[in-house]
C-alpha cells in the first residue's frame, strides 16, 4: 500500500440531495475533503477549481449528462479517478461510462462499505499511476544526464590530445614548443591509452548490463580463476612494491556463472587493491564457504576510503581525487563489479579504514548441480 497523499479532495456531483449528503458523510469520515455539486455545469467548475483526486458522479442528471461530465473532467485532468453512480442500473450504461474513461461504477442502491471500497481502490490506483509516472520522468532524466557524463568522460582525453596538437601546430618552430614537444607527445600517448581503457570498460559495463552474460552459466572454480589473476597481476604488484597472497584452503569454491565476467570481477578488485595500496603493502584474497554461499574477500593495506565516499563507490565514474598522487583509472571498475555481482544474484560490500586498508567482500551463491545432473565435483573449463 503506498502512502496516502496529504489532503486528497473528492468531488461528488449528484442532483439527489440525499445522495450528496450521504456520500459526503461517508467520505468525510474517511478523512477526505469532500465538495458536492448538484449539477454537471457547477460540478465541472468545481472540478476545474479543486483539482480533486477522485470524482463521484451520477450518470443521470438534468442538464449536462454524466457521460459528458466524464469526458470533460478528463480534459481537465486525465489522472482524476471517476466513479459513476448508475441509478437505472443496466450494465450497458455502466460499461459505456467505463469506456468513456470512468474507473468503476456503483449501482444504486449501494452500501457505505461499497462506496468506501471502491474509493480506496480508485485512489490507490491513482497513487500508483502518479508514482510510476514520477519514476519514469526521473529515470529518463537520469539516463539523459548519464549519457551526457559518459560522452564527457569519453571526450576528455580526446580534448586534451587535440589541444596539444592544436598548440603544437600554431607554436611550431618556437622555442616554447621545441622544449615541450617530446613531453607533449608522451602525454598524448598516455591520454590515448586512457581513452582505450575507458572504451574497453564501457563496453564491458554495457555487455554485463545487457543480460547477455546471464545465459552463460557454467560451473566455475574461483580458486583457479583467482590463481590465474594473481599470476597476471604479479608484475603490477612488483612495480607497486605490493605482495600478493591467497588464503583459499578448501577445494570447493565453485559458483555458477560466466567465467569471463567472474575474471573481470576479481581482476578489477585485485587491481584496485594493488593500485590503492602503499609501497610495502599487502593484498590478501581469502575465501570461505558459508551456508550455500561463497564469500571472497579482497583485503588491502592501502589508503582506505573515507566513510563519506563509500555510498558512491559503486557509481559509474565516481572517483576519489586524493591530494597528492593521482591514480590512473576509468571510474568504471567498481560499477562493473557491482553489476556482475548483482546479475549473479550476489552482493558486494566494503569495509574500510583510512590509512589502514579496505576489504571488498563478494558473496556469490555456491554452485549446486541442477536436478538430474551428476555433480562430479570438478570444475568445467
Amino acid at each position, binding site marked *: 500500500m503506498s502512502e496516502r497523499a496529504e489532503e486528497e479532495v473528492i468531488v461528488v456531483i449528484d442532483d439527489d440531495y440525499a445522495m450528496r449528503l450521504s456520500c459526503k458523510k461517508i467520505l468525510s469520515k474517511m478523512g477526505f475533503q469532500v465538495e458536492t455539486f448538484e449539477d454537471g455545469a457547477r460540478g465541472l467548475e468545481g472540478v476545474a477549481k479543486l483539482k480533486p483526486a477522485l470524482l463521484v458522479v451520477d450518470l443521470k442528471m438534468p442538464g449536462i449528462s454524466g457521460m459528458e461530465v466524464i469526458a470533460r473532467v478528463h480534459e481537465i485532468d486525465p489522472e482524476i479517478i471517476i466513479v459513476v453512480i448508475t441509478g437505472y442500473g443496466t450494465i450497458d450504461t455502466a460499461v459505456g461510462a467505463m469506456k468513456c474513461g470512468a474507473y468503476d461504477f456503483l449501482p444504486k442502491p449501494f452500501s457505505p462499505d461499497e462506496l468506501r471500497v471502491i474509493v480506496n481502490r480508485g485512489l490507490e490506483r491513482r497513487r500508483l499511476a502518479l508514482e510510476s509516472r514520477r519514476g519514469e520522468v526521473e529515470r529518463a*532524466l537520469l539516463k*539523459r*544526464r548519464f*549519457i*551526457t*557524463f559518459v*560522452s*564527457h568522460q569519453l*571526450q*576528455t582525453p*580526446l*580534448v*586534451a*590530445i*587535440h*589541444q*596539444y596538437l*592544436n*598548440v603544437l601546430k*600554431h*607554436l611550431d*618552430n*618556437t*622555442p*616554447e*614548443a621545441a622544449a*615541450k614537444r617530446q613531453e*607533449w607527445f608522451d*602525454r598524448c600517448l598516455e*591520454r590515448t591509452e586512457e581513452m582505450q581503457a575507458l572504451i574497453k570498460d564501457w563496453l564491458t559495463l554495457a555487455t554485463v548490463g545487457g543480460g547477455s552474460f546471464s545465459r552463460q552459466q557454467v560451473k566455475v572454480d574461483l580458486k583457479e580463476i583467482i590463481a590465474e589473476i594473481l599470476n597476471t597481476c604479479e608484475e603490477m604488484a612488483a612495480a607497486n612494491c605490493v605482495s600478493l597472497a591467497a588464503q583459499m584452503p578448501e577445494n570447493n569454491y565453485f559458483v555458477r556463472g560466466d567465467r569471463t565476467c567472474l575474471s573481470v570481477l576479481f581482476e578489477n578488485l585485485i587491481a584496485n587493491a594493488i593500485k590503492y595500496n602503499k609501497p610495502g603493502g599487502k593484498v590478501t584474497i581469502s575465501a570461505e564457504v558459508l551456508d550455500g554461499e561463497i564469500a571472497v574477500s579482497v583485503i588491502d593495506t592501502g589508503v582506505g576510503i573515507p566513510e563519506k565516499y563509500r555510498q558512491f563507490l559503486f557509481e559509474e565514474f565516481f572517483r576519489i*581525487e586524493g591530494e597528492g598522487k593521482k591514480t590512473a583509472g576509468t571510474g568504471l571498475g567498481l560499477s562493473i563489479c557491482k553489476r556482475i555481482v548483482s546479475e549473479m544474484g550476489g552482493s558486494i560490500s566494503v569495509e574500510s579504514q583510512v590509512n589502514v586498508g579496505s576489504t571488498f567482500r563478494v558473496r556469490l551463491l555456491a554452485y549446486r548441480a541442477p536436478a538430474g545432473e551428476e555433480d562430479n565435483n570438478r570444475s568445467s573449463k
Partner: protein
Amino acid sequence: MTSGARKILIVDDDHDFVEAVSAFLEAHDCVVLKACDGREGLKLAKMERPDLIIMDIIMNERTEGFFTVQEIRRTAELKTVPIFILSSLYSRLTDFGIPPDSGWLAHDAFFSKPVDMPELLEKIRQRIGGHDRTTGTPSGRKAEP
C-alpha cells in the same frame, strides 16, 4: 586596462588541457594562473585579480564550474571580470534543465572544447585589449594577423 601582460586565470581539472592552453597563451604575452578546481580558482581570482577567467564546467564535482561562476559574480571585486567558459558540455546544458540562453550562467563567451587557440586569443584580445608582441621566432610571425 593595462597594456602590459594580460593576466589570465585558467580553472580546469585536466592538467594536460591547462598545460597546452597556457603554453600558447604564455607564448603570446599572457601571464597564466592555474587552478585545478573551483575553490582554488576562486581563491586565486580574489588574490590575483586576473583580467580574464577561463572556466571549465565539469571538474571534480560534476557541475562545479556553474557554481564557481555564480560565486565569482557574487564577489564584489570580481563582478566585472570577463569569464570565458571552455567546456565540451555546453551544447548539452538542457540535460541539466538549464536553457543555454537563460542567463543563468553569467559568463561572457563560450567555447567548445577543444578550442582553436588563435581564435581564443583573438577573443581574449577583443575582450580585454592588450597588444600582442611578436613572438620573436625566426619567421617573426604573430599568432594573429
